[in-house]
């Protein structure tokens, strides 16, 4: 069993490349996570991520490196206190 997490990632940096959104969506799919992008600018992106907590951690690690066209300065993580955040799921 692994804790289930729902978090908002506020990603900041040089994010203007058009490859970043599909990259984030693809990386989340590879990890089996749900990802929905709610806000985007060339320097900031907000993504809601849901799934097993350890894989949400792995999503952060992957995004910190990101594609070569993008430079991620920081990822601020915020737990979302809704129903999803209190669930548990099989790892």
């Amino acid at each position, binding site marked *: 069993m692994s804790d289930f997490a729902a978090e908002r990632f506020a990603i900041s940096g040089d994010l203007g490349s058009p490859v970043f959104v599909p990259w984030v969506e693809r*990386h989340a799919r*590879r*990890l089996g996570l749900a990802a929905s992008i709610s806000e985007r600018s060339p320097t900031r992106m907000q993504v809601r991520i849901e799934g097993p907590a*350890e894989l949400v*951690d*792995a999503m952060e*690690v*992957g995004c*910190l*490196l*990101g*594609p*070569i066209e993008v*430079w991620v300065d920081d990822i601020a993580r915020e737990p979302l206190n809704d129903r999803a955040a209190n669930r548990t799921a099989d790892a």
Partner: protein
Amino acid sequence: MRHQWYPVGIAAKLPDSPAESLLLGERVHIGRAKGGGPQVTDAKGRALPVLTRFGHVWTTLGTPERDLFTIPEADQPGRRLVDVGTVRVRCSPLRAVENFLDIAHFPFVHTDILGAEPHTEVERYEVEIREDSDEVWATKVRFFQPQAAKSAGGGITTDYMYRVPAPTCSILYKTSPPRPGEWDVITLFVQPMTEELCQVWPWMALFDDASTMTDMIHFQQMIFVQDRSILENQIPAKLPLDPGLEIPTRADMTSIAYRRWLKRHGYTYGAQLVAA
């Protein structure tokens, strides 16, 4: 890439007649000048800048903006300075450094020496790119090791720090078994011969009054030889600067910080820029 210092030989073992080698894909010759000091020349016979530090000869194909990094422990009394020798590895020079930074492989590659099952978990540690020194540092790394060093009498939980002061150099600080309050220093200096071939020059500054020099060298060479078969079979051969199909986790944070740092510096020799 050209404006970095790179190791090309052991200062005490320079050949009398120049030996040919490769640096960043270019031919260089390493030997002794008429006065006996180190001399490195490029393919056109032009003398390249040289430094002798940490038992090794360093050179550059360009004009470095910075002096070579320092290792203050190298001057600390009581340490034994060990030129471990050299290992040629058919892998990206960046892969060699990344492997050196990886703790998670210890129980599986260096079984019953640097790690052992079931002690496979890598506890959380801290990683940062230090802005003042422009270096990657991983601190508060702890790992159980059956035989942490030649001087270790048995299994101990070893504290580690990793430091990347240059793109192809890494320094490991680990608990000194005979002096638990001090750090042993083990370095990996990598000469990038081509993007997929490198010469690795390990060097150590240890507190160990009991082991013979030969024993210390053999211990460290055994570790590097165990790593070589892994390194030569990495796919992709170059170090990806995009995670691509890899799924890095928290335990890989040092590697991720290293790759971020390379990306920030535009250091791409031996790197793969597109997703694997």
